[in-house]
């Protein structure tokens, strides 16, 4: 906001900050709830959907307010249909509704963005409908070393959002966090495509 060269009154700025802080808080809570799950117990689909919708809403608001990257992440190419053709179905003849996930030919793909961090795949597990099945087993052989050292998911999980005292500082960290958030969201989207397309090839639930 400051960088735009637009003069604003102090109260507007203050209000915007409060809103931004509230957003960050709710955002953090959203992600924390999505990542938290009990092994062996299926999460409520309703709860997951409501959490994801809230998350999307906050993202939209942040985008429309011009805070953070409003451009679509370059890896949105993953959302295109042609990506789905790369995915192979490995278990034909599975009964309806119970098809195990196909193993995507990850090695063939050059993009590193498609390799999900272990913690995020946990989050996907929590979001029952995006990851119907235990994805940890699928991605066992995938090298996630570059993500495992990252504090990113745990930072979100512990709710330790950057607490900055200066406006500029908070904006900076806000921008940084949003980039990382975009990153996570893209990865989560990727996860769904790894599981989803197979289901569309005739093994719908």
């Amino acid at each position: 906001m400051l960088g735009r060269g637009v003069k604003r009154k102090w109260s507007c700025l203050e209000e915007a900050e409060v809103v931004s802080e509230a957003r960050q808080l709710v955002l953090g809570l959203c992600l924390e709830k999505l990542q938290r799950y009990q092994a062996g117990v299926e999460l409520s689909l309703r709860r997951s959907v409501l959490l994801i919708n809230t998350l999307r809403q906050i993202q939209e608001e942040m985008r429309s307010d011009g805070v953070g990257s409003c451009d679509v992440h370059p890896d949105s190419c993953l959302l295109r249909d042609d990506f789905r053709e790369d995915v192979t179905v490995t278990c034909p003849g599975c009964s309806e509704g119970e098809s195990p996930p196909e193993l995507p030919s990850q090695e063939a793909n050059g993009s590193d963005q498609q390799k999900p961090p272990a913690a995020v795949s946990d989050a996907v597990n929590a979001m029952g409908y995006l990851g119907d099945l235990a994805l940890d087993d699928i991605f066992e052989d995938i090298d996630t070393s570059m993500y495992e050292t990252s504090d990113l998911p745990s930072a979100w999980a512990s709710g330790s959002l950057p607490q900055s005292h200066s406006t500029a500082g908070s904006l900076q960290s806000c921008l940084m966090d949003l980039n990382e958030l975009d990153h996570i969201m893209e990865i989560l989207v990727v996860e769904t495509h790894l599981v989803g397309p197979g289901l569309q090839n005739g093994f719908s639930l």
Partner: protein
Amino acid sequence: MKIIIATKKKKDGVLKCVCNIWWTFLCVKGYTDVYSKLCLSTSINESLSLCQYMADIISTVEFNHTGELLATGDKGGRVVIFQQEPESKNQPQCRGEYNVYSTFQSHEPEFDYLKSLEIEEKINKIRWLPQKNAAQFLLSTNDKTIKLWKISERDKRPEGYNLKEEDGRYRDPNTVTTLRVPIFRPMDLMVEASPRRVFANAHTYHINSIAVNSDYETYLSADDLRINLWHLEITDRSFNIVDIKPANMEELTEVITAAEFHPNQCNTFVYSSSKGTIRMCDMRASALCDKHAKMFEEPEDPNNRSFFSEIISSISDVKFSHSGRYMMTRDYLSVKIWDLNMETRPVETYQVHEYLRSKLCSLYENDCIFDKFECCWNGNDSVVMTGSYNNFFRMFDRGYRQDVTLEASRENSKPRSVLKPRKVSTGGKRKKDEISVDSLDFNKKILHTAWHPLDNIIAVATTNNLYIFQEKLN
């Protein structure tokens, strides 16, 4: 002067429209002394007939069609049925207490091997079938499987077998020298529950509702994304009548939260969603009722918009009135009554605990915002009831436009003790006997309530206890 006239009219027991207007005017002061019977909302003469049952967490409560039986389901998969004792001659003013009639294990925990997930045995819903013969039938469901249970009484047993001793051991045939005809002798009443049908493997997602059709032959079961229609006699087949699962699960933004059949029209049913909409469908229109006949939705109030707007608009329960003309929905903060002929907005809205609106963030943090409260009508559709936190429950009298907050607690547990209305203080100054919002116990929630179909008897379930209250008869 006018007030006195109104009072006199009330004493005669004759209700006229003009009295209602007076009542609205009078409700500020205590008119309770005179109109305890007619207007439950401010009646402090609710006497307590306590029936306490320590159980696993109660997950559903349902009266049968006569109100004689009250069924509860719990998290451990058990069903407990209470029966109302006949009125005793000693205490004609006190209707019979409810005592345990039958207990059985309805569902057991299961394991889904393909998904490596447990299937909880918690009973999500119980629905009674109308009685057709000596036995009672009910449907109970957990997340995946619905079962039809037959509850029958046995008060006689055969005695005098030729080949068996009384204790069941077989006699040595060589000792049998005479023949006799076994006869039935009375015995202590035994209530047996046996599963007559198991309706399984039809739901991929968690079942949240079951509803018996007015044709008493079919029923529906609804999960997060689909609704199936069953015939009570056929267990290996069901018809899918609603399917909102998107081709791409990533596009999923809405789930089904509750469904119910119309009480009179066997072709009509409704289902509510997590986005606060209710869709009414007509099964005559097509086999798959994805296109609704009517959609009920109230436009959002822009003043109340927040991050949590969608979550609190999610409908947790939908119930038709007994008349079939209205339906009631429960979202997080309010109860809404809809006229089935008007889709644009509800005809009545009652705030259950509006003081929580400023606390939504904390309630989101502790997950309370996802609590699913149920609601119910009284027998003549004049009063609606729903639960809240701190073991409070609320009644709204539609006719007199009044409401009352009551508490189900140990302090009120002495026989014939009268329930005192409770109040949550919202302003800065807390009056005596009021409770401040911050001292509410959010772990004590009343999610399940039920109203006797014919009398003013209510069943209120706290986490572990079932309270039954009745109207004081003078």
